[in-house]
């Protein structure tokens, strides 16, 4: 069985992984305790404090409507982590269920499902997302749906490649000979062996999902204003870059930092599980 302590030690032995983990933890902390940390409401406007540069009272400055950027970044962390996190989780669950079961069963069902997924994968993720949002209309739920639809096929394919190499192995044959039920074979025999691959995939998907949420916000088709969505904040700040560069730097830096953190962590997961 897996030795958690050993994994933990190996995980944090690598400084890059440790850094990534700490960054992600900080953002999770912001998301969890945001309301008690944030100095202001993310939507509160102050007409007297329009486009103020960073100061003691407003460490990241204020935007064109006089809103505190630090508070918007903090609340934005909650938004993006919940959206990208739950979207990724759902996509990984759906992708795993479909990928493991369908590829183990094989036959025409496998052909049908994966040709369909190939069709979806042929479209660039962002294009597919825009098409979907065009149909269902922009909202938080739509963005969640988009993440699930866009990433489920990818996770399913990864699961399938792992299952295909396992399904002809002796222990599966043996289980089948023993007359084990399908669900036992799928979830007790196959799943544990597919898990490490999927864990790495999940971490990677999470970083892509963060990017996707931010991109959709930036394109103005994702979360709607006045939500403190980081992508939306970049979009809104873009036109006034010369007047208030800090209003662009803050959300852009937050997106970059979180994506880098998640990527470093994902790399750590991969290395640790490969050992």
């Amino acid at each position: 069985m897996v030795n958690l302590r050993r994994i933990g030690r190996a995980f944090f032995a690598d400084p890059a992984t440790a850094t990534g983990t700490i960054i992600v933890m900080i953002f999770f902390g912001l998301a969890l305790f945001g309301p008690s940390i944030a100095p202001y409401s993310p939507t509160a406007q102050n007409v007297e404090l329009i486009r103020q540069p960073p100061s003691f009272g407003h460490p990241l400055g204020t935007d064109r409507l006089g809103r505190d950027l630090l508070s918007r970044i903090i609340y934005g962390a909650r938004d993006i982590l919940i959206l990208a996190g739950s979207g990724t989780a759902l996509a990984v669950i759906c992708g795993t269920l479909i990928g493991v079961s369908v590829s183990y069963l094989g036959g025409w069902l496998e052909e049908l499902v994966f040709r369909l997924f190939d069709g979806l994968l042929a479209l660039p993720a962002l294009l597919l997302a825009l098409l979907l949002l065009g149909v269902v209309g922009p909202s938080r739920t739509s963005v969640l749906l988009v993440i699930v639809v866009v990433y489920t096929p990818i996770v399913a394919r990864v699961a399938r490649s792992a299952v295909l190499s396992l399904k002809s192995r002796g222990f599966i044959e043996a289980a089948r000979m023993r007359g084990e039920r399908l669900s036992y074979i799928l979830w007790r025999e196959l799943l544990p062996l597919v898990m490490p691959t999927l864990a790495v995939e999940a971490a990677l998907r999470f970083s892509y999902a963060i990017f996707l949420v931010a991109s959709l916000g930036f394109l103005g088709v994702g979360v709607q204003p006045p939500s403190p969505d980081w992508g939306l904040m970049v979009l809104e700040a873009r036109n006034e870059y010369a007047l208030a560069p800090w209003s662009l730097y803050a959300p852009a830096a937050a997106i970059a930092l979180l994506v880098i953190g998640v990527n470093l962590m994902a790399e750590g997961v991969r290395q640790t599980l490969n050992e």
Partner: protein
Amino acid sequence: MSQEDDRLKTLQIARSEVLTGQMSRRAFLRLGLALGLSAGTTALVACGSGGQTTQPAAAPTGISAGTPSGRLRVASEIPVQLDPAFASSDAEILILNHVYDYLVDVDAGNNIIPRLAREWTVSDDGLTYRLTLADGVTFHDGSPLTASDVVWTFNRLRDATLQLPTADLYANIVEITADGDTAVVFTLAEPNPFFLYDVSDNHALILRAGTTDPATTFNGTGPFRVVEYRTENRIDLAANPTYFQTGKPAVANLEIIFFADQAAAVDALRGGQVDLVLRMSTPLFQTLQQTPGFVAVQTPTNGFDLVRLRSDREPGNKPEVIRALKLATDREAIFRQVKAGLGAVGRDSPIGPLFSAYYSEETPLPPRDPAAARELLSAAGYPDGLKLDLHVPNSGDRPDLAVVLKEQWAEAGIDVNVIVEPESVYYGDNGWLEVNLGITGWGSRPVPQFYLDVMLVSGAVWNESHFSDAEFDALAATARTTLDEAERTRAYREIQRILIERGPIIIPYFFAQLSAHREGISDYVAKAFPGRTDLSVIAV
């Protein structure tokens, strides 16, 4: 089906032109199938935030008497359609306004001023207009301008069989006749006190009689002649040495250089590749204001963003709700946050301060009072407040306006859900006329009657708030037809009172038209519709 779709699209595009003041309402109504489509596309792009400066309304005085000298380079959006009958965007009108002439022009103060027509008389019944042309005017090909050219031009514009966008605008004209070579007589079916503004419609540039391809011929009487037109790149013009107005143009060469976006145009201005940019967004303007070596010019316009609630169904059919929304709104704060204080604060009526003869502050606007608004809502049967979807097109500063309103109205217990939509969605399938609560941009017009007739009288084609008020309708009809200026002024004042008291609309601000030029060019007078700017008086 696809033809039907195209037609809808054309109309949607044309609608945005009307709203940005580039096409008349009647022109829009007239617009047939695919006609004018390409021209409209540019106009859609052009429909951004408006802007304004404070400039004297007087005619430019700095015309030098010497020979034209120097070169003026102007940044512009990309023109598509250069036949005057179809042109509509800023970029298109800007070019044509310098190649051709109007009979009469509208100055920066919205006054009618002479151009080809040096004087005019109106009959007592208001039905006959006689305009006398300037002497010695010639087209660029050397042929003289006569009254028959004017008759030919207007007959073309109102020819119903050609399906031109102007046919409805001029439907009230019974007859146009030449009185000798130098006078033109327009006979109207019913009085129209604003007829000279119609004569100065953007499309009404005088062509030579019999011109077969106006989109490429460019044979005008205007201050400049076309040297070279490179599609989607630039147009080079040279001074017309035989121009009938002495002292014009001031520059020998006019280069209009096309840019796909405003930021690029402003960069070109900063980099010294152009001398003048006629239109830009508020942040770009504010940036230039802080840059030495450039003059940022804001010109007041009567363009505005309209926040409107449908008054023919819940909850807007309750007068208390309309009053509550007005009480919950801080127009001054909106003006500063959304417009950076550029333009003017609105008073819920489209008759803005620019129409100084009609504008009135007689009726006080009640000060903001969210608590009173909450009580009104309670009295109207909404003790727990209201929940409303606010539809807003994703153009100009409208999304910001929506966000500020959401914050202000929240204090009065009104929970707004902002829905930002692309313009094609907001205006598509007439959705903007359907939604309960929306924000629509309206362009600047030289006279206020347009807004009342298309936006507020009962059953008007774009009565988006579905406002229907007998007293208002009667006043609007009076203002439309009376030849008594004092009576019209009274009607407009009453209309402003009604709109403040019970109009289902909020007009938080009027736009400023924002432009900028480098130091060293003089006599630039910006206009509310930048395409009608007179570049021939600018000296370099």
